[in-house]
């Protein structure tokens, strides 16, 4: 039944787009260069004229959403007019089948989820698998996924794995929301003692009867990011295969007392063992989190991605965060999944007037870890801070694509991205876009990217890019790809610390600089330990150097 629906949906969608391109070939031609132009401008700090031109293209798109959809759909087909991407079709079918009938319940939340699946199906089928010819995936190879045998992780209840004790966070100091393979585990989650009106839990448990009007309204945000958020195939695949979604809701003026610790655990059931001969099976989980902080609310979220050791799994996750006027969301994210796993994540944030969003992230696990982080400003005087760190060791690709769009005056943003590559087969990618549009006067935006390459042949692709239309702004950006700083090394030596020890301390401190911004001491200690042991096993630091911990 589900399969038939999918097929029909696909046919309709394809017919739709094909007809558009056939009837109006001129439009396709006109649109394609504009889209390409946008890509080209981002390559560097372009001249003023070209930047302005790019925005014009953007504005005409955002003026009417459907037009832009059409344009992008047409664009995506321009190289592949032959027909739909059968790989996506096949995957979409598997994902659709994986949603069990009983999960398609009739609560308010379940309906919202079903609705999301429908919308996502259409969009996913209109997309094409990204290749290196797409600007967003220019440096990041996701084609290898097409050679794997992807299957959604079966969610039939099996014995819940016992991992809670190994998370490094004390369960008394946080509320805990646990996903196992994309489905919230009631038994592992602990959310007792929440403030009145606040909600932390599964979307499926929200019904019209038990939800207040504000919580019901909050569900409207599901799968509807702010205008200007860029689409990505993997967002749609998540929406298509989503089985359950976590909801964190803080009503007006409520400060949630303890951080909310969201754990994503992938069992990798159905996937090959890591390193298994000829094993190409990969098990896909699609967890999703919706965070809504109403006016003046304050929430702290700690996301932690973990998984079964030596399993091959893919966590394709989406986190949507809506921050209303004057609200504050502090977000920590720790990705420590298995080295054989794939981790693709979308974080879509919208920020109202005078709101604050702070993200501290450490990406150290995974064979491929891709994070698309987008923040759209919906009102003036917002504060946005990103502090991110990634560690790429042997055969690891760590990719952060961040995008901050400022449309209103007096926004303040600070971004620090640091990455270390410790092996010649390791790669780090950073694309940091800050867009200061015409009305975003008196914006104060700072961005700094620092990369440390510690092995011959290690790769980093860094693309910091500021697009500034407003003329009264303060924007800084810097990108350094280097070895350690001579001045710092000398400072150690001048104090009697030999060069090798000094290097160890400095490499570790390069990472610790970001990890120290984590609001949670236990998580910080845990990550410092993980980073240190990884650096030590790659031989780039001496584990006996008494720094940190």
């Amino acid at each position, binding site marked *: 039944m589900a399969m038939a629906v999918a097929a029909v949906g696909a046919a309709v969608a394809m017919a739709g787009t094909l007809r558009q391109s056939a009837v109006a070939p001129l439009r396709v031609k006109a649109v394609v260069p504009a889209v390409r132009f946008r890509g080209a401008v981002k390559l560097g700090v372009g001249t003023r004229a070209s930047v302005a031109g790019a925005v014009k293209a953007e504005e005409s798109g955002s003026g009417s959403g459907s037009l832009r959809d059409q344009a992008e759909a047409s664009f995506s087909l321009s190289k592949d007019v032959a027909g739909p991407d059968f790989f996506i079709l096949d995957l979409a079918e598997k994902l659709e089948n994986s949603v069990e009938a009983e999960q398609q319940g009739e609560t308010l939340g379940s309906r919202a989820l079903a609705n999301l699946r429908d919308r996502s199906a259409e969009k996913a089928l209109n997309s094409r698998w990204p290749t290196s010819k797409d600007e967003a995936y220019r440096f990041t190879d996701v084609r290898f996924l097409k050679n794997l045998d992807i299957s959604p992780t079966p969610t039939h209840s099996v014995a819940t794995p016992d991992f809670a004790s190994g998370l490094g966070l004390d369960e008394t100091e946080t509320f805990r929301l646990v996903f196992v393979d994309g489905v919230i585990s009631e038994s592992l989650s602990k959310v007792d003692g929440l403030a009145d009106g606040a909600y932390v839990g599964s979307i499926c448990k929200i019904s019209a009867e038990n939800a207040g009007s504000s919580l019901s309204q909050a569900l409207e945000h599901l799968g509807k990011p702010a205008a200007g958020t860029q689409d990505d195939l993997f967002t749609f695949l998540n929406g298509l295969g989503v089985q359950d979604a976590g909801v964190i809701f803080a009503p007006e003026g409520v400060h949630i007392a303890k951080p909310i610790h969201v754990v994503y655990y992938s069992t990798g059931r159905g996937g090959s063992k890591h390193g298994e001969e000829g094993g190409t099976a990969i098990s896909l989980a699609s967890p999703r989190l919706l965070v809504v902080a109403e006016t003046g609310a304050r929430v702290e979220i700690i996301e932690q991605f973990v998984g079964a050791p030596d399993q091959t799994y893919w966590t394709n996750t989406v986190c949507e965060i809506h921050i209303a006027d004057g609200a504050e969301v502090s977000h920590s994210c720790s990705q420590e999944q298995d080295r054989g796993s794939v981790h693709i994540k979308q974080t879509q944030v919208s920020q109202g007037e005078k709101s604050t969003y702070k993200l501290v992230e450490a990406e150290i696990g995974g064979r491929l870890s891709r994070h698309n982080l987008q923040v759209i400003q919906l009102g003036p005087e917002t504060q946005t801070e990103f502090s991110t760190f990634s560690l790429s060791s042997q055969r690891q690709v760590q990719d952060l694509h961040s995008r901050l769009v400022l449309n209103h005056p007096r926004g303040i943003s600070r971004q620090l991205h640091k990455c270390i590559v410790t092996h010649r087969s390791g790669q780090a990618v950073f694309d940091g876009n800050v867009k200061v549009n015409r009305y975003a006067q008196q914006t104060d935006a700072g961005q700094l990217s620092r990369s440390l390459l510690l092995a011959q042949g290690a790769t980093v692709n860094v693309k910091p890019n500021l697009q500034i239309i407003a003329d009264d702004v303060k924007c800084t950006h810097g990108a350094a790809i280097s070895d350690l700083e001579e001045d710092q090394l000398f*400072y150690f*030596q001048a104090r*009697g610390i030999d060069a090798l020890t000094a290097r160890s301390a400095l490499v570790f401190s390069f990472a610790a600089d970001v990890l*120290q911004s984590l609001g949670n001491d236990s998580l910080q200690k845990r990550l410092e330990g993980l980073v240190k042991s990884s650096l030590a096993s790659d031989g780039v630091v001496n584990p006996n*150097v008494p720094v*940190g911990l």
Partner: protein
Amino acid sequence: MASCSSCCQHVATPGVGGFAAASRRETRAAGVQVVGAGRLQLKKGAVCGEELFRGQSLQGLQRRVRRSGGSVAVSANALAAQLQEERAEKPSEARVILEVQGLRAVVADTRQEILNGVDLVIREGEVHAIMGKNGSGKSTLSKVLVGHPDYEVTGGTAMFKGENLFDKEPEERSHCGLFLSFQSPVEIPGVSNMDFLRMACNARRKARSLEELGPLEFYGFVAEKLGALNMDPKFLDRNVNEGFSGGEKKRNEILQLSVLEADMAILDEIDSGLDIDALRDVATAVVGLKKENNAILMITHYQRLLDYITPTYVHIMEEGRIVKTGDMSLASQLEAGGYNAVQNLIAKN
């Protein structure tokens, strides 16, 4: 030139002190040709002059002497004054800690010469101050002594407690007890002061074959130092110099000096960027660390610091050389009339 000849007599007199002894040693060393011009002029008139020139191109020397002009004689005067005073005030038993002779150095990248023959002798218990215009080479001298990689030594020697500094790596110089308080200490995000101090302390202890201190023992050790310097223990939890105010950075340098228990501290503009109270605190801390068997070399622009830490000698540096040496009165002259007044004084002599 009367004072010059008197000086020469001191030099020629055996056993006057480490200075003379060292110059004899130097004479025998192969590196004579790099001895600075000022010093050569000083010795040229001396009894032992000919011996000094052995193995060296006389023409080259004369050329250099000519080039250096009038200030050479003044340099000789300065050294004479220093020596005379030493004889009057300090009997010869005070050990020499640092002895710099004819030090020349260039910027490693550009080959630009910064130090142009520096002579300096510092003994235990002494406090020396170097003053001079911006760009005269004061900070370079301090960095060269501790082995900063931006500079390359092209001539001269520096003996620290009888060992050649230039044979040692920067960390080994620190292990010997040489300490530089940086003019603008670098920030090290991600490394806490506590960890940094413990690494530094243990590195020196290890070099001296002492047992390394564990975290708890070290805390006891450093807490005492903090108390003596009147500093907040919270200092230890912060990252090295990260987000520190100017005053905090300088205090942190003094804390490191205290933890390392160095024998000789070079304080490069320890007074820059400090308000009046902070300067008093930092200076008081330095005075508290002063002992009979250690020494201080201060680099400063202002007399105010010298009012707190009274120097035994004040040197004036110009174009990479020490051109005049005197006592506190020299600093007062500078303060009153600026460098021009002092230059006029030099020219008159």
